[in-house]
């Protein structure tokens, strides 16, 4: 209904202004700009509301200033089975500090008005299902989010959310893992929108010191199956790893290592925490800039 009205408002042959781009197109524009500049994407993950709502917005601004291409905003959930102890504890902290879904959407709304980088929500399907797909997608759109990563929603259960995201112009980023058989990985790669999330190791989230064997070959193989950018995550903590992965992938996701930084700085005044996050992200962003 809304798009009809907008279509009438827009002159027939006028170029679509940037502000009318769908969220997923803004994400694509970021990858296109990176490609043109010979850069790779740094995609940090932070937990919404950790350590509190106001600091969360400032942390997202710091990540943006430090040169991240996009950001995943982790939505705290009480029973996250895909996450290791670092992210799990951050969820517990944020929930303990009173974060709600309204609070998370508020953080996204405020931050997305102030930053350049697209923000995606990393949310358990438990939360999306409970709110209702239509409402969750509408709230995400209103909050300026570019899409979702839903770590506990496999291909077989995803048709409804997929359809809602396509209608709303939001990305639904899918994950492939080392245990995914090739024919299944191909299907997942084909269905993924925005980008494809290549999980580097079998296991839960958490920083690791070395790159798993076979990762580079796997990324090269996936590239023959999909046109969307391929980002690698799970276990990347330092600039050397980030540089090595960025040599073959389109970008690097850094989660637990950043969340640990936030946890360590949580007792400091907000300015120091924010400065610490910026100092942590900047060299990683440089490392993937080629």
């Amino acid at each position, binding site marked *: 209904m809304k798009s009809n009205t907008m279509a009438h408002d827009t002159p027939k042959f006028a170029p679509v202004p940037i502000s009318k781009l769908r969220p997923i197109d803004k994400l694509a524009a970021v990858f296109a700009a990176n490609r043109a500049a010979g850069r790779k994407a740094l995609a940090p993950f932070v937990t919404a509301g950790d350590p509190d709502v106001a600091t969360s917005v400032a942390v997202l601004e710091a990540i943006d200033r430090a040169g991240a291409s996009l950001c995943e905003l982790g939505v705290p*959930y*009480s*029973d*996250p*089975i*895909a*996450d*290791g102890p670092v992210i*799990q504890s951050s969820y*517990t902290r944020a*929930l303990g500090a009173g974060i*709600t*879904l309204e609070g998370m959407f508020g953080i996204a709304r405020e931050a997305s008005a102030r930053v350049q980088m697209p923000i995606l929500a990393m949310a*358990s*399907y*438990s*939360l999306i*299902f*409970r*709110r209702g797909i239509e409402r969750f997608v509408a709230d995400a759109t209103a909050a300026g989010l570019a899409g979702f990563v839903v*770590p*506990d*929603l*496999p291909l*077989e*259960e995803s048709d409804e959310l997929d359809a809602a995201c396509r209608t709303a112009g939001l990305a639904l980023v*899918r*994950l*492939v*893992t*080392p*245990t*995914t*058989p090739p024919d*299944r990985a191909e299907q*997942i790669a084909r269905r993924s929108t925005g980008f494809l999330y290549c*999980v580097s*190791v*079998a*296991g*839960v989230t958490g920083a690791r010191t070395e790159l798993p064997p076979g990762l580079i070959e796997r990324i090269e193989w996936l590239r023959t199956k999909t046109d969307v950018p391929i980002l690698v995550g799970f276990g990347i903590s330092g600039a050397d790893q980030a540089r090595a992965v960025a040599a073959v992938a389109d970008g690097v996701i850094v989660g637990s290592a950043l969340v640990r930084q936030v946890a360590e700085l949580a007792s400091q005044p907000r300015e120091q925490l924010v400065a610490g996050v910026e100092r942590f992200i900047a060299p990683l962003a440089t490392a993937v800039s080629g």
Partner: protein
Amino acid sequence: MPAAPALSSVPDALGRFGRFGGRYVPETLSAALDQLEREYALAVADPTFQAELDALLSAFVGRPTPLLFAKRLTEYAGGAQIYFKREDLSHTGAHKINNTLGQGLLAIRMGKRRIIAETGAGQHGVATATACARFGLDCVVYMGSEDVRRQAPNVRNMRFMGAEVRPVESGSRTLRDAINEAMRDWMGSVETTHYIIGSVVGPHPFPRIVRDFQSVIGRETVEQCRRQFGRLPDTVVACVGGGSNAAGMFYPFVDHREVRLVGVEAGGRSGQPGDHAASLSYGSPGILHGSLSYVLQDQDGQTADVHSVSAGLDYPGVGPEHSYWRDLGRVEYTSVTDGEALDAFDLVARREGVLPALETSHALAWAAEEAAKRPPSEILVVCLSGRGDKDAAEIARVRGLTADGSGK
């Protein structure tokens, strides 16, 4: 008889019981769940698998378990005749062993020599440790640290049989957190490890597999009732936490619509949020631990805190097939408080010479009260899912008794 649709023809290929069930898990686990589903289909079609399991159920577990007339409890209630299906006489003292032997054999077929499990009351942990000792498999059991405290005898027994017990300190330190930790272990070990889930919960195909292995309870009960009474019972009752003993008891009865089926949940201290663990009585549809079912949760979908005096029922979710039966109205679900369950423990201990588990005591409390309202011509079968030895110390503590069971 009218041609009613068979309620037993679930789940479908995607693991759906009506709208419930399914598989909501990280992609890392998808291949292992597919493998388990394939292997289970092969095993079911393989007569040597069933023969091996049957031989173990007979000589190792001691099946079939008896159907006992609870004479003095029946006299006390003064109504319907009460019978106990004696799962407490199974090896390890509860029904859990029916499932762990079956899944242990599946793990061996899949070439997986390491087993992980979660446990609440410790009965599933003990049953898993037992199967692993019998089969020579490595065994790690995750158990909330609050439950480690409440169920110390079971923790000791697991260790005696060579299992490693890992106390879980996160969250509420109970069954739900133990499942989270077991899932996380499995995420990193899935290629060499099988996760023996202990209840009819979790992602497809677990709810179906656990129900099938536990259905030996209901199949034996149907046969015993036909032989002893020449007919099926009027009412069958079982306690429901995740719901494995109830699913195994009810499943062979669901297509016999004349039999009334009743599941009894943990009513805890009160009906207030956080005071009970009665998902089907007070919960709403949601996704927890990989499947869609009734869940105790807040308006955002965060899992709620729960309480029960019984560690095995202290869980905010329930098996998806129970949600299906609930919505169809095929099974009635009700709840019994901590106090009523403790009273039933005393009643059955003194009048029958049987110490029931606190989980089971919930079903017994409802049964004693209901039997009083029914005529003596009716037959009421209680699934006596487990023995109460493990609870003795906790009952003494809750009652303010000394360790030897005397007063203060």
